[in-house]
């Protein structure tokens, strides 16, 4: 567990964490709504509602020049690393104004200019790419960091071992953040993992392994701070496992027969946004009115993104051949 002796966060950081989580939730709910209204072509989007504390706790303390590699469930990470909600939503709607001009869609959201090196449609495939960014940072001699998000499912891919091993052997500035939301599509990690926790594997690489409550943003934040310092100072990677939960299914069309309504209700009791908002009011860091205001601003951002996306033009089929080669 993270070192609890760390000094409390500045109030503006606490409010920023709450706001960040709200922005992700509002964005994901808007995506879900678009999907229900059949305005999103393609595969049902992989929503991160429920997991916002991980995105906020990690991404909001990254520098603009840091890198981040994410997964098929990567909207929240991308938004909080600095991508624009409108261009993201336009990409989800396969519009010309999207980041990828409609070529990518939900699983290929990226903006290298803000350090978002890409989501991925292949489970575990982002990990080697993150390690490559780490090699590049070391090669160029900067103090940047690359964060590699992955899930409990990806921890069973060979790329996990190759990537953590290489990053550790070279002391690369990579922070591995596992969002363990229990289910690899439908399959419970308890049925497929050799160890009860993903973080148990850190011992095999002789690197710090830190378990955090993925529904509690300050714990995620503190663990990340320590891991980033370690990475920037040349001591190598850390494996953080955030125990979290996705409220929706694997995709928005997954009706979750593999888990109970009671389990879902129980996780919602520890909802990161509700609980942290309550905590900030209790601490006197925010008033109820300020919380409502942050929530309204998040909803407005998501609505503006939807409006922009829906009103944007489709890509021109005459230009479908663009971008195969440079």
């Amino acid at each position, binding site marked *: 567990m993270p070192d609890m002796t760390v000094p409390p966060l500045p109030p503006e950081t606490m409010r920023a964490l709450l706001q960040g989580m709200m922005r992700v939730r509002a964005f994901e709910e808007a995506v879900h709504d678009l999907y229900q209204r059949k305005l999103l072509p393609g595969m049902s989007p992989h929503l991160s509602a429920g997991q916002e504390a991980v995105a906020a706790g990690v991404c909001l303390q990254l520098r603009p020049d840091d*890198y981040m*590699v994410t997964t098929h469930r990567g909207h929240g990470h991308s938004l909080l690393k600095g991508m624009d909600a409108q261009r993201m939503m336009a990409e989800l709607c396969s519009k010309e104004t*999207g*980041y*990828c*001009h*409609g*070529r*990518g869609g939900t699983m*290929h959201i*990226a*903006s*290298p*200019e803000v350090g978002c*090196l*890409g989501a*991925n*449609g*292949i489970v575990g*495939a982002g*990990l*080697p*790419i*993150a*390690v*490559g*960014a*780490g*090699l*590049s*940072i070391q*090669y*160029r001699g900067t103090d940047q960091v*690359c964060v590699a998000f992955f899930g409990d499912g990806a921890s069973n891919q*060979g*790329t996990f071992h*190759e*990537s953590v*091993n*290489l990053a550790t*052997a070279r002391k690369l500035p990579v922070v591995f953040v596992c969002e363990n939301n229990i289910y690899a599509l439908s399959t419970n990690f308890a049925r497929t993992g050799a160890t009860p926790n993903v973080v148990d594997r850190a011992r095999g690489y002789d690197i710090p392994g830190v378990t955090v409550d993925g529904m509690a943003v300050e714990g995620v934040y503190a663990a990340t701070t320590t891991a980033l310092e370690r990475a920037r100072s040349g001591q190598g990677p850390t494996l953080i496992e955030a125990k979290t939960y996705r409220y929706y299914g694997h995709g928005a069309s997954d009706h979750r027969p593999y888990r109970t309504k009671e389990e879902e209700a129980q996780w919602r009791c520890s909802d990161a946004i509700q609980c942290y908002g309550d905590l900030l009011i209790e601490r006197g860091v925010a008033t109820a009115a300020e919380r409502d205001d942050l929530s309204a601003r998040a909803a407005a951002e998501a609505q503006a993104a939807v409006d922009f996306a829906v009103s944007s033009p489709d890509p021109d089929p005459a230009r479908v051949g*663009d*971008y*195969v*080669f*440079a």
Partner: protein
Amino acid sequence: MTYRDAINAALAEELERDERVFLLGEDVGLFGGAMAVTKGLYERFGERRVQDMPISESAIVGGTLGAVLTGLRPVAEIMFIDFVGVCMDQIVNQIAKVRYMLGGQVEVPLVIRTQGGGGKSYAAQHSQSLEAWFMHTPGLKVVIPSTPADAKGLLKSAIRDNNPVLFIEHKLLYNEKGEVPEGEHLVPLGQARVVREGSGLTIATYSRMVGLVQQAAEGLAAEGTEVEIVDLRTLTPLDEETMFASVRKTGRFLAVEEGHLTAGVGAELVARVTKNCFDYLDGPPERVAAQDRPIPCAPALEKATLPQVEDILTAARALVG
């Protein structure tokens, strides 16, 4: 200069020229490469520019993509092309597609050097010619040189190209010698080379098969058939025009490759020639390729599986007969 030394010289020159270029792979540093291609580069450029990697092909190849997205121009080595199976996702799903999937936000200047081909009794997992797999993958360039001069000039161009390039060397060519132009020598990607001019039959080929086709052409010349040999040099981009121009002149077409026959490179070449040169053809085009079975170890069995000069002669005689 040997084919091996030409590749080594290209790497050294590009390392010297561009600080963003670095090498990574298994045994490429201290050891100098399993095929001794990178010998001396570690000593000359140091471990930062010539990086030994664990046996982790996905991490190596995926690592090149992470390096590219953050401003570098890596050159990875995969020791045998047969090993691409374990990093196919990174090559085909990630590297080849990333520019397109991202709507042109990035350029992908990386090179994956590897070597393929048989002839040394290395058996089924170390003797393959898998270039067709990658010719079938949009977004990758596929470069496959047959001579020392081309190996050097094409590799230098590949390293300077802003697209991912799979650069396929041939294990039996490393000791082959040939003239390599002094000084800066660049061969553009996508330009075939007419190795021998002739009017009786066009043979399109590449890599080690160029040498076998040249031997066959000597025999055919003695029989009165002048063969025009087109060394494709790159499969993507493919220089169709040089091939078509030759077929329009000769009226006969034979594709020769070391890879397997079915759905191979020759199948694609024959399809394109048939479609574009149909009115000029005097008969159906033909292919010479490896038999459709794993490459065996025993020398006699390997020989019976991979294309030989005699196979080329037989096919050519049938075409002109």
